[in-house]
């Protein structure tokens, strides 16, 4: 127990108030303010891998490490779409995942946000559209914000999530926020 406490004390608080790149240095603070102001509660995200190579998932995982500390700014990844405000979807959407993705979308209560992650989620990426791939996430479910990158870095993910909250502020019913 003492070694654990000692290690915690030595490590200190690693969470970055000001990430290094100029454009990004207030991301965490803005995000927290936005989340609280817009939602008045924690933003909950359900992540869906709809066919990715797993690199995007690794960077989404990184959001939870002590440097980005996404839970610290009021954002939580949840286990069920029924508990979620936002779907964070990586692509390309494989045909085999299309039905599961649509069902996950339907199971998410309105109002809801969808953020497509990574070059494959935004455009189909290197896999494109084929007999097995439907390409970009927007080909399957309505998408509010796209975050490019292969894979996008955690700071880019934070910015994209912020953009989605901002664009839909205050959260609108689905019919308004997804004009076809």
């Amino acid at each position: 127990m003492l070694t654990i406490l000692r290690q915690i004390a030595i490590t200190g608080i690693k969470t970055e108030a000001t990430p290094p790149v100029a454009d990004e240095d207030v991301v965490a603070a803005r995000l927290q303010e936005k989340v609280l102001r817009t939602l008045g509660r924690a933003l909950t995200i359900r992540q869906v891998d709809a066919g990715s190579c797993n690199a995007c998932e690794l960077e989404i995982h990184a959001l939870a490490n002590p440097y980005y500390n996404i839970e610290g700014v009021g954002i939580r990844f949840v286990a069920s779409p029924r508990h979620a405000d936002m779907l964070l979807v990586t692509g390309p959407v494989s045909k085999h995942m299309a039905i599961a993705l649509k069902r996950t979308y339907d199971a998410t209560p309105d109002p809801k946000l969808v953020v497509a992650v990574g070059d494959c989620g935004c455009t189909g990426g290197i896999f494109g559209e084929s007999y097995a791939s439907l390409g970009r996430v927007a080909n399957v479910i309505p998408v509010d914000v796209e975050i490019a990158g292969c894979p996008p870095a955690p700071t880019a993910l934070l910015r994209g999530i912020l953009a989605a909250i901002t664009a839909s502020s205050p959260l609108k019913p689905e019919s308004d926020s997804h004009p076809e």
Partner: protein
Amino acid sequence: MNLSGLGLASAPIPGAIPALRVPVSSGQLLAACRLAWEQAATLVALWVTDDRDRGRGFCLRVALHDADGLTVLEYTIPEASASYPDLSAIFPAANRMQRAAFDLVGAASESDDQRPWLWMASWPIDKFPLQRDFVASPKWEPGEETYAFVKVEGDGVHEIPVGPVHAGIIEPGHFRFQVVGEKVLRLEERLGYVHKGIEKRFESMPIEAAHRLAGRVSGDSTVAYAWAYAQSVEAIASVAVSPRASWLRALALERERIANHLGDLGYLGNDGGFAFGLAQFSRLKEDVLRLNLAVFGHRMMMDYVVPGGVAAALDPRHDAALREQCASLEREIRVLRDIYDEHAGLQDRFRTCGRVTPDLAAQLGLTGLAGRASGQARDVRCDFRSPPYDVVPARKMTQTDGDVAARVTVRFDELFESLRLCVALVDGMPQGEFLASVPAPQPLRLGVGYVEGWRGPVFIALESGPDGTIRRCHPHDPSWTNWPVIEHAVIGNIVPDFPLINKSFNLSYSGHDL
């Protein structure tokens, strides 16, 4: 491998690893596999190529690994209606590979198990994507198929279906548990959800650019895949890679191993109810990724390994930072390892959990780090010592308990070993060119790549087409062999231990589903 008793002719396959191709007849195929099994060879990959355009029907290839290197058996299936002998009685892992080969190429084995594996009703069942005359139709809608799961019946037995969308941030797959109370009687996996047509996609890419696709077969192993692909291109284009390039590749590969082992050790702690471990290890992993960005231009080092060498030389300014990070990681990991080792709650979860005995592991061909935790002492880096491991030898880390604790131990041991290797690679980095030009290879040449990624050996077989095109590329993840072993590892364990067992293997879905 000694197949001399069968009177078979063989020809060398060019590449970084000693490899032979051996044409066999149908009777010889089974005999050769049996003989290989008796000599402790393991099945690396099984794939089929449509060669009807050359008037040769279909070519079944079976890659086997033993102490001498790779042996690729080649059997010609005269036409799609013909079948080939079932190899799963000798190599159990062949079962899913044979089913996948049928789904994609349309040549069936004689196995009793003819259930689809990668097919899920999203294209007509009588169309085969890797046949050369295949044309996809935009009218084909995603479908749903009824898969014949094995059902356990009896008093109090119930079924838990999980996935494809899982509760955590992980890749999609379906698990069907048959349980009594908390105890798992049987687990059946259904994979294929992230099948996105990678092998077909390869055939539309120029050979010199497809390392980018190879590097995205399984994103966590991008360096291993890109390196294996580069090996296969260099083999058929007869390109020699400079010492500097192979040292830089190894530096990237070892850093990929370090990053993944750190991440997994954190999640293993977390799945054992010890969130402190996740916080600590994920912090260390982030440090590694950040230095990767500074040194290699990408957090995961994607597209760093290219055919002919690497994309950029190492700026000597980074040498100190690389050495320093290795030293500080080693210090920190020692502290954390002691904490893990002495944490009674964690050890209670780790020990005896998800055990795969060495006997079972040998039978099922368990490979990579999970294999080494169950006494299967194979490591491509150590067994074949292709550059730079001939000059900077890696030490093989093995355990025999075969439980989660053993896989954790192997990860810790390999972490320290990779840190040592990284320092040695930086210290001894040769000077010279880092990128050689790669001419378009002659058509119809077969090359292989074989690299020990962090999860296990990554294999790539590449066949060239005319004018720098790809005729066929088969990337093969160690997960193919290891997924079925998890079905055995969970038997008798409780359902809540499944995430821990699963994470201790941490197999790839994307690399498997292709």
